[in-house]
């Protein structure tokens, strides 16, 4: 097809031919890993719930709905989740409003306090509430001397509100920072009263954030296991029912069936959140931060008291758990002691050490894999990238407990060499938290000027070296943030790993449940305290590292190194 004269084509050398394939190979590997470690276990659960003796059946579902005690768990789950959703969203909205739209003092303090629950397992709230309002609670039995106790739906709702609060605040805080305050001012200048402005302008403008926060809270509550198992008592929810069917009755088929039932609302909540956050992004623009009018004294005091009360509740939870692990007999004998730290359970300190090692592995593997996944999704966009993106965001829709059950059902075969090793725990936790890691990697990579990568390529760097020399150093901050996130999740998660611990592999978070179950409540608190200490320690270490030059040079144009 060439005219005479030009028939010589230059062909890429072998080295660069291989380079072209690297991205494809890596993409396929990540996609394959997600299919194998996410879709396959979930598929196994579906199969177990629908198939009996080789044929399709709804027998399991009939059994579920015919047994009134078991099927009540569905109603119970919805009941506590909806109430938690409403309370948390409202509380978090006004809290975020106070931080973003008023001129109260101590915003930094309130901000940090709001996020404290993230560093502890989702069992701490229940433990604290039992110490405060339980049968021997400090407030109920000791101060008020009444026989009422918090076990059951009330306890679950109270602890879940405390547990979900930071998650809802994150979303609403961002939403309220994006909504243009000039709208409020415009409405005010047109003569609308403050209250009217609030209802007619501020709230409608934040509606996406409100729906998103509500959906997330609902999802967190309905899939949580730690709090209901401790404080629920006889009040069974879907998550605890799965656990008792599998662990106590060895009814894997029913466990799988309830998992599928739990999967439905969880996926719905995820889809709502996914759809909303996509639309909501349009609102968050790079507009300059507007000036905030000083709030009136009345408003200022009102919001200060409001935030103070919530911050007090959160701190009270922490104080109770930490105090509870150091006093002899809560709430009767306040002598300080370390005896609760002599863990009477099988795991003991070994479990903390295992948890730490597992969490380090999860942190590194999670941060690396999500950075690479984000890099492919955001920068490389090979053929079929939409499929990889879909796989990457899917884990957020799957409750950890369901994933964990899927793992033992799918991988309990001798040829899956990783089964029964800590690695299966590492993989499960990474997969369960893959979505947020990938999304934050993508958000960070969006900030890297595409020309920088092209400059590296034009100077002769292949894909691998471009990634190592340029992309990775520029993503250092996001990498460390993702490491912390994965580390924290691994230290504190209960639901994802409860089915994966074995007679020889113990994890600190699971020990809490076992200690509590065996009546060693104070030691359960002590174990929680240990986890909190490790997470806080890791945060401090990384903060110190980030302060040194090692990380300072990587902030791009925003932070100039001093050297």
């Amino acid at each position, binding site marked *: 097809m060439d005219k005479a004269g030009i028939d010589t084509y230059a062909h890429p050398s072998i080295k660069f031919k291989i380079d072209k394939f690297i991205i494809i190979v890596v993409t396929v590997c990540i996609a394959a890993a997600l299919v194998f470690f996410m879709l396959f276990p979930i598929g196994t659960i579906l199969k177990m719930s629908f198939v009996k003796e080789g044929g399709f059946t709804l027998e399991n579902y009939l059994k579920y709905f015919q047994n009134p005690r078991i099927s009540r768990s569905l109603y119970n789950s919805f009941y506590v989740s909806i109430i938690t959703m409403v309370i948390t969203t409202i509380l978090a909205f006004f809290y975020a409003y106070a931080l973003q739209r008023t001129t109260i003092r101590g915003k930094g303090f309130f901000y940090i306090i709001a996020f404290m629950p993230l560093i502890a397992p989702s069992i701490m709230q229940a433990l604290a509430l039992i110490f405060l309002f339980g049968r021997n609670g400090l407030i109920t039995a000791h101060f008020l001397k009444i026989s009422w106790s918090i076990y059951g739906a009330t306890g679950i709702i109270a602890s879940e509100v405390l547990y979900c609060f930071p998650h809802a605040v994150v979303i609403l805080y961002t939403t309220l920072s994006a909504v243009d305050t000039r709208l409020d001012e415009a409405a005010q200048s047109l003569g609308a009263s403050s209250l009217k402005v609030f209802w007619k302008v501020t709230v409608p403008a934040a509606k996406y954030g409100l729906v998103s926060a509500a959906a997330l809270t609902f999802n967190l509550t309905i899939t949580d296991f730690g709090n209901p198992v401790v404080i629920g008592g006889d009040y069974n929810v879907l998550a605890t029912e799965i656990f008792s069917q599998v662990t106590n009755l060895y009814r894997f088929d029913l466990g799988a069936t309830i998992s599928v039932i739990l999967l439905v609302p969880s996926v719905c909540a995820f889809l709502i959140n996914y759809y909303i956050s996509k639309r909501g992004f349009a609102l968050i623009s790079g507009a300059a931060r507007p000036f905030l009018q000083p709030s009136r004294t009345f408003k200022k005091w009102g919001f200060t008291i409001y935030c103070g009360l919530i911050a007090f509740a959160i701190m009270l939870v922490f104080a109770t758990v930490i105090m509870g692990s150091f006093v002899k007999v809560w709430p009767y004998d306040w002598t300080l002691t370390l005896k609760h730290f002599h863990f009477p359970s099988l795991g003991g300190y070994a479990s903390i050490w295992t948890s730490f090692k597992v969490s380090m592995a999860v942190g590194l593997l999670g941060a690396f894999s999500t950075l690479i996944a984000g890099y492919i999704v955001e920068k490389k966009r090979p053929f079929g990238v939409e499929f990889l993106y879909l796989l990457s965001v899917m884990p957020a829709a799957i409750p950890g407990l369901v994933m964990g059950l899927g793992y033992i059902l799918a991988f309990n075969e001798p040829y899956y060499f990783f089964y029964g090793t800590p690695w299966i725990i590492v993989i499960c936790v990474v997969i369960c938290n893959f979505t947020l890691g990938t999304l934050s990697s993508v958000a960070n990579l969006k900030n890297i000027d595409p020309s920088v990568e092209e400059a590296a390529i034009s*100077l002769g760097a292949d894909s691998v070296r471009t990634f190592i020399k340029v992309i990775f150093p520029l993503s250092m901050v996001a990498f460390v943030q993702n490491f912390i996130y994965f580390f924290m999740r691994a230290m504190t998660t209960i639901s994802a790993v409860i089915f994966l611990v074995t007679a020889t592999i113990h994890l600190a978070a699971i020990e809490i449940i076992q200690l509590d179950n065996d009546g060693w409540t104070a030691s359960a608190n002590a174990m929680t305290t240990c986890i909190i200490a490790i997470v806080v320690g890791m945060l401090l270490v990384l903060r110190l590292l980030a302060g040194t030059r090692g990380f300072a040079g990587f902030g791009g*144009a925003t932070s100039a*190194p001093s050297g």
Partner: protein
Amino acid sequence: MSKDLKLENLTKVFGNLVAVNRVNLEIREGEFVCLLGPSGCGKTTILRMITGFETPTEGKVIYFGKVINNLMPQQRDFGIIFQSYALFPNMNVQENIAFGLKMRRVPKKTLRERVNEMLDLVGLYDWRENYPAQLSGGQQQRVALARALAPNPSVLLLDEPLSALDAKIRVRLRAVIKRLQQELGITMIYVTHDQEEALAIADRVVVMELGKIKQEGSPLEIYKFPKSSFVADFVGTSNFFKGKRQRDKVQFKDWEFLVPGIESMSTEEIYLAVRPEKVEVMRPGETTEGLERSNLTHGRIEVITFLGAVVRLLISMDGEEIICDVVEKDFELKNLNRGDSVDLYFPPEAFLAYPSSSTEEEHASPE
């Protein structure tokens, strides 16, 4: 065979937008070529196809006698300068410059010598330990130049390299680039939307519009003999009249301008263009002997803008606004003021005439 670069029928289609439409261009070794055009004319897309970041939909990029369409960007012997500098923020100046050499596994000693040589070339030796964030925009772009030149590429591609800088530094860095090109004898392809920059810097200017080349030639040719009204308008400033042709005259409103050499034109409707510096401004009563009477008009000075060596006048000619540039010395001599009535003279040979329908034809979209 010399290291010439040739574009053959180069075409790039994005969805249903034809960004580059059958462009043919030959760039000789050591030549400084400017691709000039408004944003969206396809000039950057051409550059990206040469670099290998975009694959041509059709056509060929030929370098050194070989079609290089399939070559990865890493294998093309081209350096690139980006508008955003694109320095590696995690590396200091000398590490940035050394990057391309490291990728080519140049021995350490040679590498250090070459980096120092480059630092001297762009005059940043004292800044070698600094990070990009600590440098000014102009300095950053000089680092980018050194970085791109360090591996000794035979072609340097510059994508609006000075657009992000302020006017003074832009002019100074323009001179640095021109000097480097002449000293190193390197081929440069320079993309810009700034016509002044293109005229000042290039050996050859290629004017583009809507994915097509409208005209190519030396800066002087492009300025003096624009082949279309688009080029006349885009390159430099022009006054335009759209009138009717009657033999060798063009009727525009109440005036009839004598324009030699238009009898053979195909259309009746004609665009006339005239550069501001070609229009003569005279005080009423100045001698008009020997001037073509029909090309003599009257007007009133509306706005005076002092541009330094020249003074730009906006003159209303019966409601028609005419831009005239007068040399500062003449301006003083003639003692012109706002509101003054003046005589205007359009020398017949100063007019550039374009058939008005030709522009429609040129704007027609590709099949």
